[in-house]
């Protein structure tokens, strides 16, 4: 890819929005060869593209599978940068531990949130599904997250969000907690003491940014 820096970054941005994972990866490699700063590629092309994806999704212009495919393309570019970022002083936007709560096996929505958070530059620790409260607590000790995100799809498993929050607070962890999932709403979040609720993946990104003061 030739052209000015702006034109080359535009191409990466467009490749993500066109769900072109191989092209995104190739263009990021080429941009590195041009000597462009890692943070410029990350923030001005990749994260900017995912922000646009999130906005388009919120406006109803993009569908869930399209958002996922864009996230996949973004991740392909991010994987090129990740080892290099580890060698620099740059810090991730924040660290988030994600999990679907105890006795709930649904992971698509939670994974979608994880992909979008990664696309926004967060480090995401995905604990998977059927995560007991104790495992969230272990993850706190191991990863020192800024935010814990919990998901539930079933009305029968929603109460396990409250139990997890009770344990985390009882053990003295005072970080941010956000929840999401089909049966969950703001009223429920308030009732169980969560710090926030997001209705969809882009909303989760915005909420996480607000929680850590990066919005």
């Amino acid at each position: 890819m030739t052209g000015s820096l702006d034109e080359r970054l535009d191409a990466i941005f467009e490749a993500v929005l066109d769900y072109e994972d191989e092209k995104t990866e190739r263009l990021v490699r080429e941009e590195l060869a041009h000597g462009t700063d890692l943070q410029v590629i990350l923030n001005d092309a990749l994260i900017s593209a995912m922000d646009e994806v999130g906005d388009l999704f919120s406006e109803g212009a993009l569908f869930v599978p399209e958002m996922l495919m864009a996230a996949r393309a973004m991740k392909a570019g991010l994987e090129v940068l990740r080892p290099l970022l580890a060698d620099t002083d740059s810090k991730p936007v924040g660290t988030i531990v994600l999990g679907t709560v105890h006795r709930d096996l649904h992971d698509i929505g939670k994974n979608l949130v994880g992909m979008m958070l990664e696309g926004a530059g967060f480090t995401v620790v995905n604990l998977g599904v059927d995560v007991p409260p104790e495992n969230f607590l272990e993850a706190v000790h191991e990863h020192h997250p800024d935010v814990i995100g919990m998901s539930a799809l079933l009305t029968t498993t929603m109460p396990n969000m409250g139990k997890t929050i009770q344990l985390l607070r009882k053990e003295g962890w005072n970080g941010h907690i956000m929840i999401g999932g089909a049966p969950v709403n703001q009223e429920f979040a308030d009732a169980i003491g969560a710090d926030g609720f997001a209705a969809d993946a882009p909303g989760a990104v915005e909420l996480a940014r607000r929680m850590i003061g990066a919005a």
Partner: protein
Amino acid sequence: MGNDAKSSTKRRSRRDRLAAKSGETVAPEAASTDFDVAMPKPLPAGGSAARPSFAYLDDARVDEFVERSYLILEEHGIHVSHAAAAAKLSEAGCKVDVDGRLVRIPRALAEEALAATPRAVTLCSKSGRHDLEIPRPDNTFHMRTGTGAHGFNEPAGKWRKLVMDDVKAIAAIGDGLPEVGFIAHPFVNGVPERTSDIHGLATMLANSEKHNWIQPYDVLNARFLLEMAAVAAGGEENLRARPIVSCIACSFSPFEFKEMDIEAIIQCGRYGVPIHACSLPTAGGTAPVTMPGTVLMAAAEILALVTLTHILAPGTPLIATPLIFALDMRTGRSLQASVEALSGAAMAVQVCKRGFGLMTHTYGSGSDTPDLGGQSMAERALVNFIVGQSGADILGGVGQLECATVFSPIQAILDSELGSMQRAWMRTPEIDDETLAWDLMMDVPQGGHFLANEHTLKHCRDVFEPSAFLKLARDPYEAAGRRSEIDNARAIYDRLMKREVPPGLPGEDAVAEINRIVVAADKAILD
């Protein structure tokens, strides 16, 4: 990889996005709209190889209606008020009694007429952008607004008499809604009652891009109405080549054919204008209280109209139009959406479509309640589905309330959405490896998902997307101020009212000529 869908999104460029974030500029495409509702769009091209349908009547029952229709015409006969028409029927072999009006139609003549009736027609729009092929090539249906409304439910819900400005509003709504194929002139208050049809059509011709449906109110009116249509089309030959109007001709149940409707047939023949051959029996009033009897009467009357058209206007396209009503035995009101009327509609459509093999048109919308609400939506959903599945080519009654006497623009917008939903559903899917997702099915990990793969990406936009109807969870619904499907329809209405002048409208000279005809009609009919 990529997706055609990407072209449908309004993206900001990277640089605009960064500039907006830093507060330097705001990209024009990021500016908010007046409201957050999508405007209704036509269904994408496509369709089924065969039309999905249900058989409310089996073939033997349909045949029985057909056989008895022939018997009624041959043995009982019809009354024809138009002397010249009765004479022509006599010349064609009908038995006409001493007063020259009671006409018995021999079966052979009715069969000849049926065989000669065109099975397809194009109802042309003025612009050429909305021509309607009937039957619809995708094996679904067209919809239209009604002729009978004299009341207008304002967008906020208040009822008032329908006036001339409302005709312009109906034109704009009809032109803007994708499921409305053609537009009728309603009854207009504030002009002379006996020429209200002429005043209404003049305004409709001058303001609507789509095909118009004419309903004459008297004998002379039919001539003036067709004359106006010829002017709007750019002359008689143009109207014949591209009929921008079609016209209703009705029986007067039971078994009478008034001079006005015979004149309408003659005038349609003169101009080559398609005829909606209409029987409007009311079970328990002008027809037997038992619905099969009402349907039989409608079938016989339509067969009579087929014969009349064959003799008086040979070769003129004809669309069978049974409009079945039931008398409310408690109040004496006519009902169009009662269970009995729906049963009649299903039977009548199947007799006309399968029994006679004719293009068929009936109410496919409408309700007996005065206001938009739960009942109106439930009744029209049922009417739309039953009539659509019965095989009708045209579903009438868009926006219709209080048994065809009121037009509601908000209801019309929701009706169009309902019509789109049914037409989308009627597109029966192909069953093949692609739609069965066979390769993917054999590859997906047990316990996996289908969200993030090429097959889902390829087809995720094949779904029907409503404009007004909601698909919201509670929180965003509350955040949007509990905006309902009716609020969305009102927003769509506001935008439709702000439309630009559509193409194809008659020019200034033609409008002036149409207005001269209106003045002449008032003088001829009222003086």
